[in-house]
C-alpha cells in the first residue's frame, strides 16, 4: 500500500510538472502583453514594469523561478491587480467554490443513487422509463443552460431566490442544483445499470433462496456492490463540477475561483491563469488519487499494490 501510494504521488508530481511546464510556455507564446491597455505607456515606464516583474530575465531563468516558486504555492503577483498576489486571489475565491462544489457533489451523488436504484427496482415498468427519460434529458441540458432556466423560473419569475448574490445558504441552492444536473443524470444511469447487474447475480439469488426479505437483499447485499461504479465515477465528477463552476459562478455572480479564472482569461492576466490552472490540477489529481484509495478500501477484490493493479 505504501509503495503504491508513493508511486501514485510520484506520478501526480510528474503530471503537475508537465502541467506547470506546458502552461508556462503556453502563456509565453500567448499573444498580447499583460501591460497592453488603452492608455499608452512610455517606453521607459514599460521597461521599468517589465523589470519589476522579472520579465527581462532569460526565459529559462523565468521558468526555473516559476517552477521553484510553484512548489511553495507562490505564483507571483497578478499583472492586472497591482499589489495582489495570485495566491491571495485564489484563497479569496476558493471557499465559495468549495462550498458550492461540495453541495453539488452531495446533490449529484445522493439523488443520482436514489434515482438509479428506484429505476432498477422498477425495471421495465413506468417508473424506470420515466427516470431514464429524465436522466437523458439531464445529460442533454448543459449546466449553463440549466442555470439560466433555474435563474429565470425561480429567481426572476417566482422571486423565491435572489438572482445573483452570495450571502446565505439559500443563495447557493440554485447554482449547486445547476452544477449537479449533468453528473446527477450520469450517476442515475450508472447506478441503474450496475444495480441491474448485481440484482441478477448468483449471490443475490442465493440470498433470496435462503429466505431473506426483499429489503435486506436489495439494500444490504445489492446496493453496496452496485455502488462501486459510482465511486469510480467520482474522479470525472469532481472534474465536471470544477469546470462547470466557471460558467455557473459567472451566471450567478459568485466571487469564487471559477469566475476568478474566467475574469483572468478576459483580462489576459497570465499569472492568474497559470496559478489557477495549477491549483485546479492539484485538486483534481489528488481527488482522483483519493477516489482510487477509497475504491480499494471499499472493494477488497482490488489490490492496489498488486502488480498491474493500478489500472
Amino acid at each position, binding site marked *: 500500500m505504501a509503495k503504491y501510494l508513493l508511486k501514485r504521488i510520484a506520478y501526480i508530481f*510528474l*503530471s503537475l510538472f*508537465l*502541467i506547470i511546464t506546458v*502552461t508556462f510556455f*503556453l*502563456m509565453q*507564446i*500567448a*499573444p498580447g502583453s499583460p501591460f497592453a491597455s488603452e492608455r499608452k505607456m512610455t517606453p521607459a515606464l514599460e521597461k521599468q514594469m517589465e523589470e519589476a516583474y522579472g520579465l527581462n530575465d532569460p526565459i529559462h531563468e523565468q521558468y526555473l523561478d516559476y517552477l521553484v516558486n510553484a512548489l511553495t504555492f507562490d505564483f507571483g503577483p497578478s499583472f492586472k491587480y497591482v499589489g495582489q498576489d495570485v495566491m491571495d486571489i485564489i484563497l479569496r475565491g476558493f471557499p465559495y467554490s468549495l462550498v458550492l462544489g461540495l453541495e453539488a457533489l452531495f446533490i449529484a451523488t445522493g439523488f443520482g443513487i436514489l434515482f438509479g436504484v428506484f429505476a432498477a427496482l422498477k*425495471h421495465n415498468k413506468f417508473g424506470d422509463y420515466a427516470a431514464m427519460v429524465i436522466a*437523458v*434529458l439531464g*445529460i*442533454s*441540458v*448543459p449546466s*449553463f*443552460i440549466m442555470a*439560466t*432556466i433555474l*435563474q*429565470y423560473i425561480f429567481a*426572476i419569475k417566482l422571486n423565491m431566490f435572489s438572482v445573483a448574490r452570495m450571502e446565505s445558504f439559500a443563495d447557493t441552492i440554485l447554482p449547486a442544483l445547476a452544477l449537479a444536473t449533468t453528473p446527477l443524470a450520469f450517476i442515475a444511469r450508472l447506478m*441503474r*445499470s450496475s444495480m*441491474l447487474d448485481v440484482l441478477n447475480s448468483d449471490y443475490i439469488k442465493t440470498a433470496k433462496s435462503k429466505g431473506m426479505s426483499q429489503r435486506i437483499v436489495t439494500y444490504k447485499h445489492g446496493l453496496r456492490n452496485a455502488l462501486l461504479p459510482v465511486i469510480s465515477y467520482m474522479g470525472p465528477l469532481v*472534474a465536471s463540477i*470544477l*469546470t462547470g463552476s*466557471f*460558467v455557473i459562478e*459567472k*451566471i450567478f455572480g459568485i466571487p469564487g475561483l471559477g469566475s476568478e479564472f*474566467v475574469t483572468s*482569461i*478576459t483580462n*489576459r492576466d497570465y499569472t492568474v*491563469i497559470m496559478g489557477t*490552472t495549477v491549483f*485546479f*490540477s492539484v485538486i*483534481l*489529481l489528488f481527488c*482522483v488519487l483519493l477516489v482510487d484509495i477509497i475504491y480499494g478500501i471499499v472493494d477488497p477484490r482490488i489490490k492496489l499494490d498488486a502488480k498491474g493493479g493500478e*489500472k
Partner: protein
Amino acid sequence: MEKLQLSNEDFQPLHIDQTESEKIAGESTSYWKDAWRRFRKNKLAIAGIVILLLLGFMAIFGESISGHNYRDTDLMSTNLEPSSEHWFGTDNLGRDIFARTWDGAKISLFIGLMAAFLDLIIGVIWGAIAGYFGGKVDEYMMRIADILYGLPYLLVVILLMVVMGQGIWTMIIAMVITGWINMARIVRGQVLQLRSEEYVLASRSLGASNMRLLFKHLIPNTLGPILVTLTLTVPNAIFTEAFLSFLGLGVPAPHSSWGVMTSEALSALKHYPYQLFFPAFFICLTMLAFNVIGDGLRDALDPKERK
C-alpha cells in the same frame, strides 16, 4: 370406455424426409442486419435520427427560408418579439434570431462532427497500434494518453483557446488535442481482446501482414464500440463549443453559434427571455438527439449489454 378402432395402416412407419430438417427456417442475417433490426425497434433513437435530419436540413436551408441573414443589423427593430416578420424575434442589434439560429446550427454541427471525425481517426490509429503491438509500445503510448487523460479536458481546451486565439478551426484543434484519448482507450481495449482470437492467428499463419490484420480484421471488428463512442463524442463537442462561446472564447463575430447566442441573451434574460429560449432549446435538442441515438446504437450493437 370408448372402443378404439385400429387398422393395419396405423402401424406403418412414418416417412421422415431427412432433407427437411436441414432447411434453415429463417433468413440468415448478418451482424449489422441484426443490429439494424434491433435499432429500428427503438422509437426514441429513430426519433433522434429524424430530429437530426431536420436540424441538418434547417442548418443548410433555414437562413434562406427566413428572408433575412445572420449578420444584418437593423437598429430600428431591436429586441422584437417573435412575429410573422421575424419568426424567432430579433436581438439587441436587430438581427433576425431565426436566421442566426440556423447559422449557429451550421457552425455547431460542423464543429461537433469535425471534432468527432478527427478524434475518430487519431484515436483509432493510436489505440489500434498500441493494442496490437502491446509490450513496450503499448506502455509508452498509453502512458502518454494517461497523462493527457488526467488533465481536465475543458481546462486544457480553454488554455489552448487563450493561446491560439478565437476561430472555428482553433476550437476544433483544441478539442481534438485532448479529445482523442477516450477513443484510443476504447479501441485499444477491444484490439487487445481480439488479437488473441483464432481468426487472427489463422490469418497470420496464412501470411497476412500487420497492416492487413489491423485494417482488415481488427478495426472492422471494433466498429460497434467505435460507432457508439463517436455518437457520444458529437454532443460532447457541441457542448464544449457552446461552453467556450459562452465564456467569450468561441466563434468570433459576426458569426453566431448557439453558445454565443445564449451568452448574449443572458444579459437581457429578464426582459427578453425568448432570445435565450431558441438557442438553448436547440442546443438541448441536438444533444438529446445524439444521446438517444448513441444509447440506441449501444443497445443494438451489443446485445450483451442490453438491460
